[in-house]
């Protein structure tokens, strides 16, 4: 079963904003409760930014203005629930001054109260939140929260993890503190993404992109070589020097699973279907086996003269010490997101710029599911496909610098952004719209269900039940 839902509520049918760069959190203790985000403003322009909330497993969504951003939207925002207890954690860059805030809400769906601010710090980038609840033993019941972030206060070793080992109830800062995970020198900074993955046995991975050399720059972009580095902690990050359990061949903490990869970091140009490139990274750990971990990233295989943006996926079966080499490569793709379910099935969500057969290109959002780590062809579901030139970009990122995929039990949940053109051909596995739309005429409609509304970028939620109860007829559901 595969369910795809356009998340824009009916009361905002007239909106035409670029609601890009999504994130999502599913409450493992009650998977009907889901919270998601995008660059969606409060339409009334208030001082709290909204999140999308669902209390029915993602079938319906509404916006709640609970994020104390100091303005109607946030810059970057990422979310996670802990494993139990229902507390939501968020890391954001707020809007007026782009400070990094760590936020907490004990009941994000049942309450309309703004989230509590736990940390507020300047000169930061791209928070990415993961969390877990200690299942038993010492610290049993504690919420442990790990937020990858790019801390320019620590330049040039900027890759960092903000963590708290008991975050649920304490007052500000609720045990949060930042820890650098970059131990080597850099070419001024690490790349924006630091991604974390938490296993209930206390294993925590943090992966980042070490910028090694600067290779020149041009209008709106800079070229670099980078290493993909993974670090690990074996006891929840409780020690004095967290994320030092993995040691590389140079004796430094952190194994370099890929080295010297060329990237073009296009902060203010969009060379790939109106979208920028330069900082794609994902990690997932097997919930049944903390030694089995997957990493995906993107780089430019063609080097400085190249035009590609290539996704790579690799696996480690020995806790990050050694790596498989590429299990999968995808040319001209973005936004890999990984998750592994309780049966060991690996899911990867990604967005590929594909030829449309008539000289144009389309953004195609895929979900891969594999039980053979891509040794055999994966189950490949196209969630969305739309011309890459429509709508025109308003700002960058066009679709987002990331998407997100999660697993709870055997099931997968995810979120991506794309054109909201109401065309069944764009949704080969079906879709449900909350906002007013006429799929017969391909027209979005305003609240009056009459006035035409122009196409824009919207967030889409999806749910994939595994194992598929009706694998022969997914499009009927």
């Amino acid at each position: 079963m595969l369910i795809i839902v356009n998340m824009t509520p009916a009361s905002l049918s007239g909106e035409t904003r670029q609601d890009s760069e999504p994130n999502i959190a599913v409450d493992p203790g009650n998977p009907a409760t889901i919270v998601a985000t995008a660059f969606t403003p409060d339409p009334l322009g208030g001082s709290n930014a909204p999140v999308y909330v669902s209390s029915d497993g993602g079938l319906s969504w509404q916006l709640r203005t609970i994020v104390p951003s100091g303005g109607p939207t946030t810059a970057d925002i990422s979310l996670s629930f802990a494993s139990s207890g229902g507390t939501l954690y968020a890391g954001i860059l707020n809007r007026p001054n782009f400070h990094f805030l760590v936020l907490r809400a004990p009941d994000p769906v049942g309450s309309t109260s703004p989230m509590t601010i736990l940390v507020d710090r300047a000169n930061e980038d791209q928070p990415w939140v993961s969390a877990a609840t200690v299942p038993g033993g010492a610290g049993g019941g504690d919420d442990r929260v790990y937020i990858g972030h790019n801390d320019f206060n620590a330049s040039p070793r900027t890759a960092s993890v903000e963590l708290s080992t008991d975050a649920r109830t304490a007052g500000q800062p609720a045990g949060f503190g930042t820890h650098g995970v970059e131990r080597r020198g850099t070419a001024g900074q690490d790349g924006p993404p630091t991604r974390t993955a938490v296993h209930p046995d206390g294993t925590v991975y943090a992966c980042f992109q070490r910028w090694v050399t600067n290779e020149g720059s041009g209008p709106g972009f800079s070229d670099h070589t980078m290493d993909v580095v993974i670090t690990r902690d074996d006891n929840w990050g409780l020690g004095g020097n967290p994320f030092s359990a993995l040691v590389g061949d140079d004796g430094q903490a952190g194994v370099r699973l890929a080295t010297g990869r060329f990237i073009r970091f296009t902060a203010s140009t969009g060379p790939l279907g109106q979208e920028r490139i330069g900082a794609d990274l994902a990690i997932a750990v097997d919930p049944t086996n903390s030694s089995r971990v997957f990493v995906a990233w993107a780089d430019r295989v063609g080097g400085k003269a190249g035009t590609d943006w290539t996704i790579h996926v690799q696996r480690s079966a020995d806790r990050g010490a050694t790596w498989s080499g590429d299990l999968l490569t995808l040319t001209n793709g973005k936004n890999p997101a990984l998750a592994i379910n309780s049966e060991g099935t690996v899911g990867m969500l990604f967005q590929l710029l594909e030829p449309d057969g008539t000289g144009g290109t389309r953004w195609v959002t895929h979900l891969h599911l594999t039980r053979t780590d891509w040794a055999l062809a994966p189950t490949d579901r196209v969630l969305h496909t739309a011309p890459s030139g429509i709508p025109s970009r308003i700002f960058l990122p066009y679709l987002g610098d990331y998407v997100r995929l999660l697993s709870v039990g055997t099931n997968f949940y995810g979120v991506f952004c794309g054109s909201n053109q109401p065309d069944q051909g764009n949704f080969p596995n079906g879709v449900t719209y909350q906002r007013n739309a006429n799929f017969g005429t391909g027209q979005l409609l305003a609240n009056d269900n009459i006035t035409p509304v122009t196409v824009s970028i919207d967030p889409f939620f999806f749910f994939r039940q595994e194992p598929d109860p009706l694998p022969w007829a997914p499009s009927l559901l």
Partner: protein
Amino acid sequence: MPDSTLKDLLASAALAFTGTVTATGSSSVAGFPADDRTAVVTVREVLKAPDVLTLPAGATVTVQLSPELPVLAAGESASFFTDALAYGDSVAVRELARLPAGVPPGPAQPEGDSGTRREASAALRELAQEEIIAHAREADAVVRGYVVALEAAPQAQEPREYDPHWWVATLAVDVVEKGDIPLGDARDPVPVRVLYANSIDHRWRDALKPKAGQSGLWLLHRTDGPMAGIAPFQVLHAMDLQPSLQLDLIRGQGG
């Protein structure tokens, strides 16, 4: 806010409307937590709303009534001044202030509901003008001119994601309303260099980006630090460019 004018109330609220309570203790937004201060209101007319949120007469809004105001019963009408709580099939809002329906405060005489709406429209126009005047007062220079050149500013370091990507617009200025700029005229306009953020990263998405030939009234802000050597002024706010017609407004109000 017992002494507030209609304009004050509109300034403080993101959404304002008159309507009649049809139910209490419940919500028209699925899953929205309701209590005895939650009222479902049928909209009679909208006094203030953004374009994206159309609320036709008869639309339903859930209002979380202010704890500082009396609870309303079904059948009672009022003008509600609110901000957002939730958007679903319909909208839920938090009440900030309330007026009896159809009775705007201040010197104007109430003329029924349409009178309230006219009064609100006039107040909103005043608020918009006051916002421009306040912004002009914060500016270090106010000039009329048009863009004659656009060029990238020298870059001192490798670009980073959130860099503004400074560019310089050269304005040909024929009217100096405010600021330490030599006077020009239509035949011999004065060139004025102005920094702007040319990045299209979301951090700078609302920053003004001058276009070739673009003309109007420019509200310039002095550049601080090393970038002052490249251009003495900058424009970063979307309101830093106004139609030339606003010159009369700014002169009249001492902007």
